């Protein structure tokens, strides 16, 4: 390959104008042929459904009849739908527990594993492994670990002297924390890797300088690590937020929204209304709400991030 370029003309003369527009046309055509095989699938299966969603949200439609335009009726119904409100609050509750906990644990893991030493790759691999394990297997195992009577977790708690350990997934109070714990365990390795990449981009000189100035480890963490990690932390928080608001499969398998409605989340309410009750129009209205929550949160986070940077 390297030798072929040698006898090429140094610089081709600039083509006349008409040729150039023909060239643009040709390039455009070739460019499209590259992109189309993927783009057609992407457009049909993602873009079209997203747009259709906004139409469906204004209709009343079950699986068999026709979609009837009913204007804002679905959204009015949302205002008085107690189950929807519960789902909304639960989703917020999940996010409020899940986001800071995952941030703290994954950053802690990254700090612990950001050392050059023998076997470090093994430890990183271990931390990442839960993330690629299937939700179903994880949910099944953790449900058993959380088992109220003789599950390992409660046996451990009782050994510690806690006489009345929680019922976890069978208790309305503890089911959400149990789900959050499981999801933190599953996802921390992923965010750990993102933090690790961020940590390794911090120039060592900054730490040397801080050391020379007499800053001890904790000061170095707050004055060097935390500010330098800001872009990573921002990125992680954005992803984590969206992930939290669309949580579904883990809850579906672990608790199915229960007991009662204690772990019912927005995405599951969409699933229930749509696929279990065939109320497509109303489910779409809920989906529109989810869409705007995710969009809104992302925009707000970007604005906040920008303001801090100035």
């Amino acid at each position: 390959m390297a030798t072929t370029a040698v006898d090429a003309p140094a610089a081709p003369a600039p083509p006349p104008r008409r040729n150039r527009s023909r060239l643009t046309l040709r390039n455009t055509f070739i460019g499209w042929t590259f992109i189309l095989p993927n783009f057609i699938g992407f457009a049909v299966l993602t873009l079209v459904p997203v747009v259709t969603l906004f139409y469906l949200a204004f209709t009343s439609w079950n699986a068999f009849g026709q979609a009837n335009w009913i204007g804002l009726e679905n959204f009015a119904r949302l205002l008085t739908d107690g189950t929807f409100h519960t789902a909304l609050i639960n989703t917020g509750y999940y996010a409020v527990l899940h986001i800071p906990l995952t941030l703290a644990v994954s950053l802690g893991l990254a700090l612990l594993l950001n050392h050059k030493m023998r076997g470090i790759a093994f430890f990183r691999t271990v931390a990442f492994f839960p993330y690629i394990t299937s939700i179903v297997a994880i949910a099944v195992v953790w449900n058993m670990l959380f088992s109220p009577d003789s599950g390992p977790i409660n046996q451990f708690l009782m050994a510690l002297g806690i006489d009345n350990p929680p019922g976890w997934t069978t208790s309305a109070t503890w089911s959400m924390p149990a789900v959050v714990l499981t999801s933190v365990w599953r996802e921390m390795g992923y965010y750990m890797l993102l933090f690790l990449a961020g940590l390794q981009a911090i120039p060592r000189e900054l730490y040397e300088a801080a050391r020379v100035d007499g800053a001890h480890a904790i000061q170095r963490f707050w004055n060097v690590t935390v500010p330098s990690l800001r872009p990573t932390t921002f990125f992680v928080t954005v992803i984590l937020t969206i992930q939290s608001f669309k949580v579904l499969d883990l809850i579906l398998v672990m608790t199915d929204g229960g007991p009662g409605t204690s772990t019912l989340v927005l995405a599951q309410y969409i699933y229930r209304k749509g696929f279990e009750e065939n109320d497509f129009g109303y489910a779409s209205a809920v989906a529109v709400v989810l869409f705007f929550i995710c969009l809104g949160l992302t925009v707000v986070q970007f604005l906040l991030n920008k303001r801090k940077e100035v």
Partner: protein
Amino acid sequence: MATVTLDRPGTSPAPALRQDPRRGRKLAARIALYVAMIIAAAAIMLPFFWMVTSSLKTNNQVFSVPIQWLPDPVVWRNYLDIWAKADMLTWVKNTLILSVSVTFLQVLTGSFAAYGFSKLRFPGRDVLFLTYVATIAVPWQAYMIPQFIMLSKVGLSNTLWSILALQTFSAFGVFLMKQYYESIPEELSEAARIDGLSEYSIWRKIVLPLSGPAVATLTLLTFVNTWNDYLGPLIYLRDRDIWTIQIGLKSFVSQYNAEYALIMTGSVISVLPIALIFMLGQRYFVQGIATAGLKG
């Protein structure tokens, strides 16, 4: 930003060999670090350990008080019984068919599109790419209903094709490959163009062979993602004979909800292929996450 490899050589100077008065303290810190890591690793792996040991126990032993850490006797029978009690073979076969074909198509169309986005310049290109970017913040859970209706209308629901369609055209593959292609020097394709190679040949003969690591990364991530998918199959696959391993396992759990040991056996079988792939390619997983940490 093109390829972030953790711990690239050269980021830190080799440890100097001079006498360090704090050597003893450093050694102690190092040992403490190892202890902390071992504890953390053990805690993280504990659920897996419990899963595997339980799959080799009898039902009564799974929830014995106090916990019985190791199976005694070791019940290998569970690994024979499960094939008779569940359609494991069918589920594994379906999942394998889907994972392999989705992965192949996604790598093919993704790398092809990535070439168009990174190596060719033409009007409208950036707008097109922006539509990919714009969908990142849109959760699938928001548009799964219109998508389901569409695929049902064309008769694809309740067939394996629906999952193929669902998983193949993710924006993720395009992103990941584009990131990598941009790190391949422009001069290479320029030289090939002067030699008279068509763009398609440049993609096939030059760029694709050079993008081994990116292809490996995308292959692993897509395969694992398709293997582990639960929601897609839950919504689309109704008939038992087209179920995937995840749906099958879930139904097995509901059906045999007191057969704890067998349930764990099924879980182990569903995780085993992924664990194997993970061990073979963990380097690429790390690279993939670091390069394009926007999966999901």
